[in-house]
């Protein structure tokens, strides 16, 4: 039994799945905070499906990109649970999960995740039979230039993800570019679990001691600082790290 946690957007989604079937899923898009709702949702789901902690063989958590805070709440919870239960932890990219929402299409799937400031994190997928393949590494792009690029291809593309709010106004009436319906476009923990199947089978787990979100974007402060000091290569190389002390003996 594996638990999936998806908190990369405003949607809170948790699911449990075994080797052959989806046991249950709670997906809520009601504007509630992940911080308050996530663990209670997991608790409710496990109670409703009668699954004990000891039944869990692993935890699959969204690794990003998406809302920085949302990612950290999901991952902070998942890491602590995996650490305490001593079970494997797996990280799945947000787009890998999202692409699973549109099964077995012959169209290209374009996942778009809101990246703020008119931008989206984009990635492309196609099916070869029942096998989903990413055909281009995720990238950050301005919504308008992504739409321009896809319009020029004159091929059918289906959009999924919360970046749709930036794409939809630009593709109205376009016969090739399809905006998926609301129930398909949101990230789901069940899709994340599906996506993690190969990873689980291959034993590609992550260590809760070292796992970090895949933000793609750096923090605004770092970008601005580098811009300000771009002419000073010595300062750009400065990369201080944390200092860890054991202070129990302090008087």
């Amino acid at each position, binding site marked *: 039994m594996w638990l999936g946690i998806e908190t990369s957007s405003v949607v809170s989604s948790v699911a449990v799945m075994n080797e052959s079937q989806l046991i249950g899923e709670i997906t809520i898009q009601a504007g509630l*905070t992940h*911080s*308050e*709702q*996530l*663990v*209670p949702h*997991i*608790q409710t789901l496990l109670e409703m499906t009668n699954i004990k*902690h000891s039944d869990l063989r692993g935890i699959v958590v969204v690794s990003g990109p998406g809302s*920085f*805070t949302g990612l*950290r*709440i*999901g*991952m*902070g*919870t*998942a*890491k*602590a*649970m995996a*650490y*305490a*239960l001593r079970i494997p932890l797996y990280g799945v990219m947000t787009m890998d999960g999202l692409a699973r929402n549109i099964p077995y299409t012959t169209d290209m799937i374009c996942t778009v995740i809101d990246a703020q400031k008119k931008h989206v994190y984009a990635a492309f997928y196609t099916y070869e039979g029942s096998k989903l393949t990413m055909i281009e590494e995720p990238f950050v792009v301005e919504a308008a230039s992504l739409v321009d690029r896809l319009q020029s291809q004159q091929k059918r593309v289906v959009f999924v993800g919360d970046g749709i709010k930036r794409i939809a106004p630009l593709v109205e009436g376009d016969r090739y570019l399809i905006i998926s319906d609301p129930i398909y476009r949101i990230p789901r923990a069940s899709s994340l679990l599906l996506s993690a199947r190969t990873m689980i089978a291959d034993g590609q787990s992550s260590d*809760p*001691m*070292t796992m*970090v*979100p895949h*933000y793609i974007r750096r*923090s*605004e*402060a*770092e970008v601005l*600082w580098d811009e300000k000091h771009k002419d000073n290569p010595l*300062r750009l190389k*400065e990369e*201080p*790290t*944390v*200092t*860890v*002390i*054991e*202070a*129990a003996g*302090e*008087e």
Partner: protein
Amino acid sequence: MSVYTLALESSCDETSAAVLKDGRTVLSNVISSQVPIHRKFGGVVPEIASRHHIEQVIPVIDQALEDANVKLEDIDHIGVTYGPGLVGALLVGVAAAKGLSFATGIPLVPVHHMEGHIFANFLANPTLEPPFLSLVVSGGHTMLVHVKDYEEFQILGQTRDDAAGEAFDKIARVMGFPYPGGPHIDALAKEGNPNAIEFPKALSEPGNFEFSFSGLKSAVLNYLNSKSQKGEDIHQADVAASFQKAIVDVLVDKTKDAAHTLGETNITIAGGVSANQGLQVALEAMCKEEGFTYYKPGKILSTDNAAMIGCRAYYMAQAGKFCDLHLNAKPSVPIGTVAWVEGK
């Protein structure tokens, strides 16, 4: 049977985990500090802080348990700072604490960061018991708190604008010192004449336990600006000494006044600014003169650390103050706020 507390702190730029035995014995207190990382930005960058917290949170917990030689299963309750602080930073600690609590069934205790600072005194001074008066001074807070009992606090007064630590850091920044600037002012002040320049002391009438440092901050800035406009030399050590004296005098006088008003003879200091030497010396001298007993936490216990959160959590657990898994981070929450769930 001993009681073991695991505590987590992530309210600003330190990720810390600690294990305590019976509330007052610190078995481990692991602190991962990001101070070197934020220095170049001139202050704590919330997003960067949060990114380091999510990276550090499990390693500090793991090391705290290992250093204490205590297994997670043997922990009786988990205390976590839920506020006040940077919301994104707090959320990491809260999420991890809830994940641990849910996975293990170990009860969760929601700890107020500033109550933790006050409780650091119990760790540094094994014989200390309430009641006492506490002067709480940090980068975000300045207040006088009457600790009547382990579970009863009364705020006598707090700052209307800037916190004392904030004033220190801002003036230090203008004088060209790197973040955090407070310690630089403290060191420089030792070499200067504290009576060289008279800076204003706000709300200094007896019986007023509120603070205000924004006027002082403006006065120092104006002084520095007008000197540099006139092309006159600035005696930096005198400015630092005079500015520090203005803050310290206010803090010490109000503490003395409050102690007499309450009839309290035990005085404690809490928060990051308590590491200021000028303040410590003045407070100690005042206490000696008035016949008060002065308690202070050590250098590390006065900065952000999980041991103090653990001490507070222990007493809350004794009082049955646990929360459920809906706990959220609260960036600004007053001391004494009820975050626990009654009857849980």
